[in-house]
């Protein structure tokens, strides 16, 4: 997690956690605390000050006694004074929900489907209820995830077949960097040797994965992974969509060119797409809850995509 500055409520919470750790495990290096709690050393010092400056003016007692010499040497060392505080309180409802929902989410991913540590943890945090059943039988995905994860930790390139959204198949050499799950889709973020940049690959479009002996490239090591899974392309086009409230998520699946606004009960906005060929399936998916308004060419493509499926599924006359 990136180190970040935090607000008063978080700082207070951090102070309580530091009390817990120092009292149970003894003196701690400032640097280690910063790493452990994913904050800067400056934030750790602020939290320590909240602990060691605390006093009760009526009773004239100091709550914790700080060892200043140790602090100068980069260590947090304090002893309990006139307080019975031993550490943080139990998790709040909101904290519990945040972790529980995160764990629910992990449990629904194929690579954690039978993870014992996870199911035990969910029980410990009293987030009862078994793992929700996933609609997609993802055993193949699970195996592939493990293969790719192994390649990521060994820092080796992978060789695979990739089918892009136009259905074109190609052989790729990729330096795998990260696996990401967005919505219901897994993506591999990696350095593509063909395009010489970080690209996103949908995992259900990858097959025949092999780890190579090739260590990942210098470029891949130095590459920053953009937050966005969508690359920018020179040939991209802008498409205007109108979506019923139930299908607003269509705007979350593409880079947005114009934020959607509510017009006569539908959300109207603009998205950017790499190619129009890949668009129809994303629109057809919503069974009429999303309409392409512009360009006309895209409207026609959506209509013909749907018509083609219909003609395939119409019952044929028996010979």
């Amino acid at each position, binding site marked *: 997690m990136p180190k970040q500055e935090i607000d008063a409520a978080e700082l207070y919470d951090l102070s309580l956690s530091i009390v817990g750790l120092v009292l149970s495990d003894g003196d701690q290096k400032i640097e280690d605390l910063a790493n452990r709690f994913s904050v800067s050393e400056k934030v750790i010092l602020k939290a320590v000050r909240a602990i060691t400056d605390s006093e009760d003016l009526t009773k004239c007692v100091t709550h914790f006694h700080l060892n200043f010499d140790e602090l100068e040497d980069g260590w947090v060392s304090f002893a309990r004074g006139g307080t019975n505080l031993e550490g943080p309180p139990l*998790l709040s409802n909101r904290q519990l929900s945040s972790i529980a929902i995160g764990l629910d989410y992990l449990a629904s991913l194929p690579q954690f489907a039978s993870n014992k540590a996870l199911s035990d943890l969910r029980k410990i945090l009293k987030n009862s209820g078994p793992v929700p059943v996933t609609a997609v039988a993802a055993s193949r995905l699970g195996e592939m995830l493990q293969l790719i994860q192994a390649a990521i930790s060994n820092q080796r390139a992978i060789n695979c077949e990739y089918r892009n959204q136009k259905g074109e198949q190609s052989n790729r050499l990729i330096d795998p960097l990260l696996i990401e799950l967005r919505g219901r889709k897994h993506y591999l973020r990696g350095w593509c040797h063909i395009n010489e940049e970080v690209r996103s690959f949908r995992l259900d479009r990858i097959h025949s994965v092999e780890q190579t002996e090739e260590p990942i490239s210098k470029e891949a090591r130095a590459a920053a992974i953009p937050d966005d899974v969508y690359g920018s392309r020179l040939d991209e086009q802008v498409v205007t969509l109108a979506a019923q409230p139930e299908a607003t998520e269509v705007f979350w699946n593409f880079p947005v060119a114009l934020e959607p606004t509510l017009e006569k009960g539908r959300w109207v906005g603009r998205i950017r797409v790499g190619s129009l060929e890949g668009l129809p399936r994303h629109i057809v998916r*919503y069974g009429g809850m999303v309409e392409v308004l512009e360009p006309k060419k895209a409207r026609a493509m959506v209509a013909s995509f749907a018509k083609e499926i219909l003609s395939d599924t119409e019952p044929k006359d028996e010979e």
Partner: protein
Amino acid sequence: MANQTPAERLFTLTCCLLAAPRIGLSKQDIFSSVPGYSEASNDDARDKMFERDKSELRNAGVQLEVVQIDEFEPEVGSRYLIAKGSFEWPADFKLSAEQLGLAELAARAWNNQQFASSARTALARLKSRGMVEVNRELSFLSPRLLARHSAFQPLAQAITESKTVIFEYRIPDGQAEAREVNPLKLRLIEGEWVLLADRQGELRNYLLRRITSKVRETGANFAFKRTDLVEKAEQDLVSHTQANQAVIEVAEDSEAWWHFGASSTEVVLNFMDESLLAEDLLEYGNEIKVISPESLRRRVHTGLERVVSLHA
């Protein structure tokens, strides 16, 4: 001494309240013990400061109790203390390195969205329970939750504060209707956000994407103690999903084949909601064909007809 920051004031307040006698501390006791309060410019500002701090403590999960000594003068007669048990973790509470790694992954999945700060502080508390090295093998994975529904934040807030809410809800093929519910839990099931709520004594599930209006608080508060019913409702949803089965035919070696992890052309799927499954199937066009149930086949067909007429 320099002025106390809000975090320092909250910390001192916590220590003072924990050391309070069994009858608690009066507001006056607190004001004279915690240095931060003497820095307020006037009584009114001090009271506001204290009100804010009380709610911060409660948000942090500190159970603050108010004892009324004199019912006729609640302002003067209120005394405050921290409920016993608020800081008492079960003696055997200890997480393994792998579990801490998973909790970290769960927290990180929020990626600066609504619950991110609660998840971070929760994780810090878990990490403060004795030194265990976090399993770093998981750090190559970065699952990210998406909780962008506009209903999410107000519902999460209402759950935390036990407040009744009202919203418009539209079931597939139906009209939007108002629902007044006591929200209990938000869950992510099969990639969809689901609200579990108590509506007139019955527990119901609501898909967030089908909430078509703003979520408003009615002003009423509720107390829901039947956690056994929540467990039962969750179990019911799982049984419901297990009982719902669809059979589809997939074209060999197609994208759908890979996506659904097919090992033969006929694939059996479990589903929570038929119209959501229809969406997943529609995306794969003629690479798939619905065999059963008939209602799903019809739904897919009608969806396609709607797309055609909408884009005519």
